[in-house]
């Protein structure tokens, strides 16, 4: 099943007379259960692409179909609702609400969704156990390591059983061992839960673990390959 379909997507940032073309003519689709990495150097448009797919920003041209619905035409409220129920987010840093505990952070979205207490508690406890944070539920973000904090973020992103999890450079602020452990955990979640992941990274070791890698360069897809396929063969750019 096609979760996301991006058609001829462009994003231009304008500042006074200056125009910065962040994305240009992007076409791609994400199938349900895929674990995809968007890679590329800084400024290649990785974060912009994720933000547009997540409904956090609006494209200059093109459209994004999320489970068949064109989200570029949705209003703020509807987009907010879509993010709450169908998309999980993991950011690079400062990912958690500092005044809430690990449990409360993971619970946050479910509270906004109005899930009943018993069901919510059981679900959050299971998730925290799954991400290896059993026993750390009552810790505040400042009492946890960067890796632990990102695990809470993963638990929170998965809490609402979303169709898609978007992770913008989730390992950027972690040491390589912790970063890879986090990616392995996300891969595990992808396998066991069947959740679709779309990650951005410029870390080659993260790219190694992905089943599909989309390479961006200067706002355009320079290659899009699945495991076992040659990057060069799948390069859509001339």
């Amino acid at each position, binding site marked *: 099943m096609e979760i996301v379909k991006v058609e001829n997507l462009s994003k231009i940032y304008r500042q006074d007379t200056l125009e910065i073309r962040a994305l240009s003519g992007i076409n791609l689709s994400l199938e349900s259960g895929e674990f995809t990495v968007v890679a590329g150097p800084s400024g290649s448009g990785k974060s912009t692409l994720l933000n547009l797919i997540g409904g956090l920003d609006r494209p200059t041209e093109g459209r994004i179909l999320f489970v068949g619905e064109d989200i570029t035409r949705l209003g703020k409220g509807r987009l*907010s609702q879509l993010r709450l129920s169908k998309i999980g987010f993991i950011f690079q840093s*400062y*990912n958690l*609400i500092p*005044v809430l505990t690990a449990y409360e952070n993971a*619970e*946050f979205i479910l*509270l*906004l969704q*109005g899930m009943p207490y018993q069901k919510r508690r059981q679900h959050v406890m299971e998730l925290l156990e799954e991400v290896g944070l059993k026993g750390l539920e009552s810790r505040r973000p400042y009492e946890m390591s960067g890796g632990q904090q990102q695990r809470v973020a993963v638990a929170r992103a998965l809490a609402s059983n979303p169709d898609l999890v978007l992770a913008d450079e989730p390992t950027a602020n972690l040491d390589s061992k912790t970063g890879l452990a986090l990616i392995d955990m996300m891969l595990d979640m992808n396998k066991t839960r069947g959740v679709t992941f779309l990650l951005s990274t410029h870390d080659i070791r993260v790219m190694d673990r992905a089943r599909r890698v989309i390479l961006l360069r200067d706002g355009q897809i320079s290659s899009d390959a699945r495991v076992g396929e040659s990057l060069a063969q799948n390069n859509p750019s001339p």
Partner: protein
Amino acid sequence: MKAFWILLKLAWRNLWRNVRRTLITMVAIGLGLALAMISIGLNDGGHEQMIESGVRMGAGHITVQPLGYQKNPSNDKIIADEACIVEALQGMPHVREASLRIVGKGLISSAANSSGIAFRAVDPGKEGDKSLLAPHLISGDYLTVGDTGGILIGEKLAQKLKVSVGKKVVLMGQDASREVSSALFRVKGIYKTGVSDLDGYFCLISLKGARHFLGLEQGVTQVAVYLDSQFQVEKVLSLLRSRLGPLPVEVLPWQEVMPELVRFVRLDDAGGYLFLGIILVIVALGILNTILMSVLERTREFGMMLALGLSPHLLFLMIIFETTFLALLSMILGSGLGLGGHHYFATVGLDLTGLTPERLTLAGTIISPILYSHLRLTRVVGLLIIIFLVTLTTGLYPAVKASRLAPIRAIYQY
């Protein structure tokens, strides 16, 4: 409902992120509120003392006098049937005492000198009248029941007339038939209030003595009605007016008898409100500073929360909850401090004796140099509502600012 719960939890915890800043703001708002309470208490207390003093020195909370007396006072305007008024006042709720009086102006003379005076004739047995001068007697005694020839004069007047207790003085004036009449009185006592207008001008005689002096068989020029409290004037006034309807008398509240006192109280109240306004502005700026700072430094976090799916109006609500918590805590602190201060000034009083060499009169009343706070519940509730609304209104700007954030901009630019 569950979303509200997490928002309340977040708002409460956010408030304590920067404990020092929250405490400083709370103390600032609390002190502002306490200051406003104490100021209102002393202001209202001072006004009530002035009004009570004016009422005691003047013509009671409610004055019954001959029709037209207020516009053109004259010794020939008499209430002939005062018993009718006394009867109407019998058993009326909130009425503490009714004092029958003859008031007028005349000339007092001794062997050495003479002076223009105002006199008041009272029933010496009435406590309300007695409490005016009896505590200030420096020699002699207060008038006694049945006394016809005794007179109380002030120290300043006694010095001018060169008389002492037991000496004779002659009182001259216009009687009820507009003829000049005179009567001999003997100085019964000399008082000193410290107010030169009283001590050099005001004399007290008995009703019997005045009737003898003015050639009256009966009748009075004024019935001063004292109530349990100045706040019952409206109720008693309408009842009394309805009971005395057919009589040729005017029934006036103290506000009409002493308009200059009303003007002073209003003017003083205006000053009080200006002071209160300044306090409210300071309170508002304090809150705005705290909430705005706290919003600005959390821009990225708000962006993240919006990205996760928190709707802008729930974010708005969260900031409003934070403001509300801050306001409520500050109000509890401020109320504690303010009521404590009020209690102190209500029992011990604010002694301003050092600021005035002698007792002051203002708008025809003696101002006590010791002010006692009087804080009515309605004033406290009103003030708390105002502070709460000011706080909430001040929190609107940061809340709107936060709710209008674009998540992407908030996350990546802050």
